[in-house]
Structures are given as C-alpha cells and as structure tokens.
C-alpha cells in the first residue's frame, strides 16, 4: 500500500492543534485508517494509507481529515475561484491515447522547502496511487520563470492585467522538438528523455506505445512532456508564488478529480485558485470543477448496516463531521426517510451511497459498536473432496508416513529433469505443464504435474535427519488440459477432483508416498499401497510397466478398478544420486479420485 511522509510539526500547524503529542497524533491517524509505519531520517511520519482516499496523499489532505475528525470543521467546504484568464488550447494532434487535459492557475502560493519536496516526491508505490485513479499529475509549474528564466518571457507580466494568455496541448513525433528537461542542462527530444534521462527511464512505460508523444507549448516553445517530465524553464522553486497546474490523462473525469485534490491542498496553504478555460476543438470546459455532487442515502440502510438506531439529527451531524452536508427528505409525509448528501469534488472514492454510510460509521466510531452474534441458522459441513483427502491422509499417517505439505509451484528442472522424465514421455508426471508468465524466480515457473518430485526434494534437504524417512503428501497436481478445455480423467471415470471448469488446466488431487530406509524394497511400497486399497474397498492390480524415474523390472502401474491411475516402484539409483541420497527409496503416486 502507498506510504505518504508527513511532518508532524506541519500537521500540528495545519490542524491548529499544537498541543497534540506525537503519540496522540498517531492514535488519531490510526482512527482515520492511516497506519504509522515508522519515521524518516528527518523525523517525518511514514503513514501507510488505503488507496481510496487520494485526497489524503498530502499533508494538507491529512490535516483536513483530522480537523473534521476533531470536530473543528463541519460540512462541505468549497474554495472560491476567480474567473479564467488563461486558456489551454487542445490541438487536433494530441495523442489518441491521452486526449484529455485540465488545469488551474494558483496564486499566492507559499511553498517552503518541505512542501515543495513533498509535492515533488512521488508516491513511492506509484501503482498504489493508480488504484482508483491515475494521478498523472506532474509537479505544477510557476507562472513566473525562476531566476534562470528568460527576462523577456511575456508571462512575467502579472496575469491580472487582463491580457489573455494561452498554452497549447498537442502531440509531436518522438524526436519532433527539443527542450531542456528538469535536472538536465542540455536540450533533449522526448525520445532522448525516455532513453537517457533518469526520470524519463522510470516513466517511459506510460507513453512507450504512443505514436505521438504528449507535448505542451507556450509562445516561446515546447516546455513540458507530460506525463513524464516538465521543462527546466518552468521549474518550481521556493520563490514561486504563482503556479500553473496542468494534468493530462486518459479520462476527463479522472484528471478533473485529481485537479480538485491539488486545488484543495493549495487552497489549504492560503493560495487563491483561478479558473482556466480548456478549449477542445469541439467544446470548451472551465476548470477546475470544484462543484459538489449529490447522492441520496436511505436512513434505514444506515441503520441496517451499522446496526444502530439513529435520530435523523444525529445522522446529519455525523455527515457534517465527515465533511459532507446532508438534508433530510420525505420524513414528514410518511415516505422513506432519505438524506440528500452533498459530496465535495475531492472525494473520488464515493462510488455508491454505501460509501457514505461508511463515513457515518467512521464518524460514529465503529469500535464503539457492540458485537452481536447474528441470529441466522445454517447447517455446516465439509466438502466431499476435502473429507476424502482427510480420510486418505489419516490412513497414511496410520501406516507411519510423515504427512507433508509442499508448494504447488515448481520448476521444469525439479519436476522433469531431475526425475529423468520428459514432458512428452508416456509416464505418470509427464504432461504439458501449466506455466507462469514472466516468472521472477527460476525455482517457480510452473505448477507441478505430480508430487513425487516434491517428496524427493524434502528427502534431499533432510539427509542429516534420522532414517527411516517415510513421507507422504496428498495435494494438488495439474497440467494443461489438451483435450479442448474439458474435464476428463485418465482413468475414464467422471470425478469431482478433476478440472471443474473450462480453464484449460486439469487439476487433480494426487496421493504420493516414499519410503527412504536402508532396507527399502518394492514390497514395502506395494504393501502400503495394498493397505490403502483394502481400506477404501477398491480393486488393486499392479501390472509391470516402465517409468524413467524407477528401476525397470521393479515398477508397476497402479491399476484401480480397471483404470490406470498411478505408478509404484523402486526409485532409480541415478535419480537417487541426483538428489544426493545414499540409501534406497521406494514409493508410489496415484490420483486420489481412484479411491472415491
């Protein structure tokens, strides 16, 4: 989950609660669902937060939530905005994949070093923030160029003189133009940035497939390559007082909501937000859109979910303490009591009225609720398959086998090569394996097609432990179902333990056992196999067969009720030596459904 670094001093400052000690703050934050993970070198709190409340990604957002939590603020707050003076012109040439843009002008910003750093810092788990939305927000750029900027930049002129100003969002060829990106001193094309600039390399995957790259121009020229990096010409410093915030994206709603979150945060720092006109070829939008939305929530749903009877006044109070406004409707004329709830634009997490019921619950305090055992009668029971598994397991334990539990994931090497089996052999374990895409570890690249390799590995890792080592496992084995994704078994019997679905993977439970002891012989394995068959009242035959893992002449098919379901035999010395074993091992493996 994403982690956000927050300075506790700043939090005290922004909430106006100087008296709160660190421990107390941590407790209050836990109540909001922000878990304290530790401190940074600079003493900032590292807070892990659930990725739904993106508005809490900044210290200002966390402070706002705390003020509601403390009851210092109530109800919805919407920042005032001044009329638009600037325009973003959207060109026909914008990349098809990223056609949308939004923006705002923010004046009177006071960015100290901390705030600036916080704003530059990206969420360290960038996937996490993209959970609900993709905040492709770049750091905002100042309206006035920094000290390194060109003095003749027309944007030096204060905006309020009323001169219309405009930037242009378009798309260009990867090497279509040059600019000096942040943290660099040389002119680069967007393609150069992706190849040679550290930030570019990190975010290259966001635009890697694009034919044209997103580009933003002002009247001097190219100055930003969203969503990868801004130009150096418009770098934000602690001296920057007036910012132009722009975001591009794949969905207008999403970037507008992200912009709201940024505007709320800058407003909390005393800045003034000014609108921007976004001119698409076919329509014009005025942004940011900080207007609230309305959702109705039924009183009875609140009561049934939280399990408490509420007075309507209390519910309205709880809504207000959550930063929402609510009005009752329909109570007097005998209709269902419903609340019209006004939701501010930074609440990107509200997808359903239920999300607002959750707010009421949090404000009320879930931990203050009395647990009760639900008055609902049902009859419990085990699944037939897991019942059979247990019965077979108990039987093998009774025969003296140590019951094991191994991983279902393994590698071709362990599953095939080291057992001297090839996938296209005609033998138990030989099958087309279900393989993992882009595996990270060469030890886990596929699902095991049989379980004996796992048992041999356990023997290999325990040669320093006393013998005899009699091991058994009942577990999953699987392979790609080549008969057109339909369930089937090699014994021809229909079965609950085979692939249930059309996933293309035939899954089965397999019963595997080995005996590693100084005097182990075929008969020891066969004797135990017979005992199992007898106890499950099935007919066992063991006609001779060949299997690359076992010694010829000491290997048999396990045939149960006429169907071949497995193999029993003495493990070949070559396989034993391969596993560093210095004593004989005998064993068997068969499909569990043969015992049904």
């Amino acid at each position, binding site marked *: 989950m994403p982690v956000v670094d927050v300075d506790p001093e700043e939090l005290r400052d922004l909430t106006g609660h100087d008296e709160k000690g660190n421990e107390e703050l941590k407790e209050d934050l836990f*109540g909001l669902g922000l878990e304290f993970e530790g401190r940074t070198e600079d003493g900032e709190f590292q807070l892990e937060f659930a*990725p739904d409340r993106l508005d809490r990604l900044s210290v200002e957002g966390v402070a706002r939530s705390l003020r509601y939590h403390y009851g210092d603020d109530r109800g919805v707050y919407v920042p005032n905005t001044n009329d638009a003076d600037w325009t973003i012109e959207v060109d026909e040439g914008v990349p098809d994949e990223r056609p949308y843009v939004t923006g705002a002008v923010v004046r009177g910003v006071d960015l100290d070093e901390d705030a600036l750093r916080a704003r530059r810092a990206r969420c360290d788990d960038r996937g996490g923030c*993209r*959970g*609900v939305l*993709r905040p492709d927000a770049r750091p905002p750029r100042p309206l006035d160029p920094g000290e390194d900027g060109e003095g003749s930049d027309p944007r030096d002129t204060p905006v309020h003189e009323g001169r219309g100003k405009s930037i242009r969002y378009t798309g260009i060829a990867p090497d279509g133009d040059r600019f000096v990106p942040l943290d660099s001193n040389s002119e680069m094309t967007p393609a150069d940035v992706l190849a040679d600039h550290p930030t570019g390399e990190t975010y290259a995957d966001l635009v890697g497939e694009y034919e044209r790259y997103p580009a933003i121009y002002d009247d001097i020229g190219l100055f930003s390559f969203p969503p990868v990096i801004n130009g150096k010409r418009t770098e934000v410093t602690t001296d920057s007082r007036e910012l132009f915030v722009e975001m591009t994206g*794949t*969905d207008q709603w*999403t970037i507008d909501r992200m912009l709201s979150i940024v505007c709320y945060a800058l407003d909390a720092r005393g800045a003034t937000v000014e609108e921007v006109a976004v001119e698409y070829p076919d329509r014009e939008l005025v942004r940011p859109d900080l207007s609230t939305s309305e*959702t109705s929530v039924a009183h009875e749903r609140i009561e*049934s*979910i*939280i399990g*408490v009877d509420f007075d309507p006044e209390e519910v309205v109070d709880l809504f207000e303490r959550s930063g929402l406004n609510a009005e009752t409707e329909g109570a007097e004329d005998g209709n269902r009591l419903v609340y019209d709830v006004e939701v501010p634009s930074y609440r990107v997490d*509200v*997808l*359903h009225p*239920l999300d607002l*019921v*959750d707010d009421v*619950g949090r404000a009320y305090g*879930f931990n203050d*609720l*009395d*647990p*009760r055992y*639900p008055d*609902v*009668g*049902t*009859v*419990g*029971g085990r*699944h037939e398959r897991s019942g059979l598994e247990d019965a077979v*397991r108990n039987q093998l*334990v*009774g*025969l003296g086998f*140590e*019951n*094991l*539990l*191994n*991983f279902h*994931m393994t590698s071709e090497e362990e599953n095939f090569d080291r057992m001297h089996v090839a996938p296209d052999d005609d033998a138990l374990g030989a099958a087309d394996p*279900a393989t*993992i895409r*882009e*595996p990270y570890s060469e030890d886990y690249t596929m699902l095991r097609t049989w379980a004996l390799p*796992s048992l041999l590995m356990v023997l290999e*890792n*325990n040669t320093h*432990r*006393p013998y005899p080592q*009699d091991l058994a496992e009942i577990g*999953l084995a*699987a392979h790609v179902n080549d008969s057109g994704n339909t369930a089937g078994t090699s014994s021809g019997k229909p079965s609950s333990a085979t692939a249930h679905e059309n*996933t*293309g*993977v035939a899954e089965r439970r397999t019963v595997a056992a080995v005996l590693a002891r100084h005097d182990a012989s075929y008969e020891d394995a066969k004797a135990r196999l017979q005992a199992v068959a007898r106890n499950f009242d099935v007919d066992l035959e063991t006609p001779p067969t060949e299997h690359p893992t076992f010694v010829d002449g000491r290997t048999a098919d396990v045939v149960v009720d006429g169907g071949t379901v497995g193999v029993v035999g003495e493990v070949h010395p070559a396989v034993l030596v391969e596993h560093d074993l210095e004593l004989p091992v005998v064993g068997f493996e068969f499909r569990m459904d043969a015992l049904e």
Partner: protein
Amino acid sequence: MQLPESQVAVLETASATEAQAIARLADETGLAPESVTGAAFELADRGLVAVEEATEESVSLTDEGATYIDEGLPEVRLYEAALDAGADAAAVEMGRVIGQSGLEGAAVDIALSNYARKGYGSIESGEITADPNADPDSDPEAAALSALADGETVDDADTLDQLERRDLVERSESTVRSVTLTDDGVTALMEGVETAETVGQITPELLTSGEWEDVEFAEYNVEADAAGLTGGKEHILRQTANRVKDTLVGMGFSEMEGPHADAEFWINDCLFMPQDHPARTHWDQFALENPAEIDELPADLVERVRDAHRDGVGEDGEGYHSPWTEEVAKGIDLRGHTTSLSMRYLSGHAQGDLEPPERFFSVEKVYRNDTLDPTHLLEFFQIEGWVMAEDLSVRDLMGTFTEFYEQFGITGLEFKPHYNPYTEPSFELFGTHPTTGELVEVGNSGMFREEVLRPLGVDCDVMAWGLSLERLLMLMYGFEDIRDVHGTLADLELLRTTEVIH
C-alpha cells in the same frame, strides 16, 4: 550372593585399586557398553562398586576451520599479499591487495575484521598498511588449528575461545564413567558370587514349554531411554487447517471448493477490482502463459459485471472511469485469494442459486508474487468465510469474528476501518497475541459492495473475511520462520517434534 550374569562379569573385572572406564570394562568383559553401564549402576545400588563421572571436553575443526589448514587464515593471506605489495613501506590501495591475495566473498570480510585485531597492520580509508614486525608464523590461532588437525590437544583457552567465536572449531563435552570396587565389593567377591538363572526376552517357546514357571526374569533398567522412534503425523499446518474447518463447521459454515488456476474474471472482475488496479499486475499475482485464456465466460454475468465497472450500481452509482475489456477478464491466473470461490458460489455457478441465509468457508491455497522471507511465501493458505442474510450489520460481522478468534485464544478484537475495492465498510482485524499480548493484525473483513453482489444476482447482504492460515499457525505455535514448516525446505525434525496442539 547371586547376581545376573552381566553384573557378575563387571564385578569380577573391576579393580579395587584402579578406576576403570566403562569402555575398558566393555572390552574386557565382551559386553556392550550400555550393558556394562546398566550393570555398574545396579552394582553401585547394592554398594558393591563406586561409579565416578567426569566430563571430558573435545575440540574439533569445523569445515571452515579445516579449509584454513591448507589455505591459511584469510588475515594471514591478506598480510602476505600486503607485504608483497609493499604495504610495509607505504599504505597501498586495498582493492589491489585483496585482488592479489585471491580472497573472495565472505573471506574478504573475515580477513579485514581480523587483520587489525591481530596487529598485522591497519586499514584506513580504503588503504592498507602492513606492520613489518608482525610474524604470521607465530599466529597462535593458526598454530592451534594445525595442532588440532594433527590430533594434538590445545590448552590455550583464550585462543580456543577466539576460534570458537570465529566458528572455526566446535567444542563438545561427553561424560566418562569409571568403576572401582568398594570394600563391600571386595568382601562379596571373597565370599563368592554366582550367576543367577535369569531370562531376558520372553519367547513363545518359554511360554508354550511352561519353562517360564522356573525362571527369574532379568531386571531391566526401566528408566533408560529407548531407541528413537518417530511415527507418522499429520502436517501441523494441516492440523491447524482442520481445526479451523472444525470450528467453522461448528459455526454453521459449509466448505467451498474450486479451481486454483482461474479466470481473472472470477478472481478480480467479479470483485469489482478495476482492471488497472495495482494488485492485478503480474507484480502481485501469477499469470499463466500456458494456458493463457479461459475458453468462455458466462455472457450475461460478464455483461452485468462490465456495467458495474463502467457505470456503477444503483441510481447514484459511479463506475471506475477506466477501461474494462473481456480480454483481460479471460486471462488465467493462479488465484491470489480464494474469494474467487466465493464469487463462483454466490453467482450460483458452483452449485446453483443460493437463498439466504447461507454460511460458506474454505481453507485453501492462494498464490502471490511476493518476496520469500520468514513471514511470506509465494503460496499460502487463506481462510475465507462469508455469511449471506437479509439485513446484516457491522455488529453481526464483529460478533461472528469475535466468536471465531476466541476459539484460537485471540481476544480483544479491534476493527480498524479500511479500504478494499470489494467491501464497504471494510475492517482490518487486530487481536491480542495470546502469549506476547501485542496487538497484531489477524485478518481483513467487510460487507461485500453492491457493485459485487448485484451483478452476481444477490439481493441481500453478504459479509466476508479473510485471513492467512500461516499467520494463525505462527500465532498459535510461535514459529518465527514459516519456511521451516511449509514447502520442500521443511525440516523433518521440526515436523516430527512439534508439540501437538488440540
């Protein structure tokens, strides 16, 4: 005096003037050492011999220690390389000396940490000097190692301590018992001892012949340890799983079952996980290359799930504003949670439409692309449970889980409001650790969202929770490294000796 045969032999062999070790008595009497020990203790009980115990220490080389016999100690090698490089005259860049010394890997650290300690020279800001007066030939640690290798004893305790700290030698202690005749023993011998007619093993022949009536049974040392024996035992994780299953069945839950490799549709999409959710990338879960796609998904359900993702559910519902394609939904993954089973059951695809009330559970394996460490495995068991009924509240959820965790000694449950894409309200569950008293996370829970339930055709409430079985096991048994238990690195000794918890 009549004594069993072995006692007679020991008594007659023992000397009143010289303490003889058990091993020597065994040699001379031709008895097994354990028989001699048993006989000696019996005789001591009768006051005929005295048994003395002494502790003997033996020192042996570890594998690492043995390597240094041939190669020389790393610090000595470093010193010699430093001399070669002229470090006795002026400081030399360290990387070069290490390169020349041929030291690699851990040996470099070993050399560096012992170099200055032994006064071979100093190491400062990446440069090394060598003390020309140091004499590696008189290094006491090297001398002790080679003495031990030659089978000699080393008496220098300080050096041995140092070598033991460096894991180059191992010390072990053994008890040596010796036997001396007492005055009573001498008297008894003078008066004469006879071998009693005793019987060891009771044989079928002894019983059928009736001979058993005339013999004396030899006394065994019934206090002695018997030879080790390990019977079979159900794997402790299975035991824990079965305990959970019993508890849940007792609470009215029925067990679910279903595919491990399943379509993302069942694993993620039905759960209202947006298709660009970070947990859906291959950084978090295993996608299959072969087979890559499910044949077919239920078309009507796909339609309803797609609508929920795009437009939300209900009048004031809001969708995700991110792309949704059936192609992604058809991809096959190893399930990252068993909630895919819950989806199959709730949708009616597993065993037909369900009518409330219902309770279902599973304790089954899930797969996550995590880093293997003492508390994380790539595959682990998830306990999953849900209750379907009209008008369930958060209090019912709290009551159910409080009841469940109490069965495992976990009390003082706290509910931290949380976010999951598929439940609202959601809670992380924290409980008090049964032994340490710490507050630890024990699960994740919530009420399924309407965006999950309505497409599945469920019109009532469903509350659900999940928990890792391994976590419960570690809380119950106090294990610190889960890899000792689950998987092919399992230690048989641990599995064989772990206390049975019931």
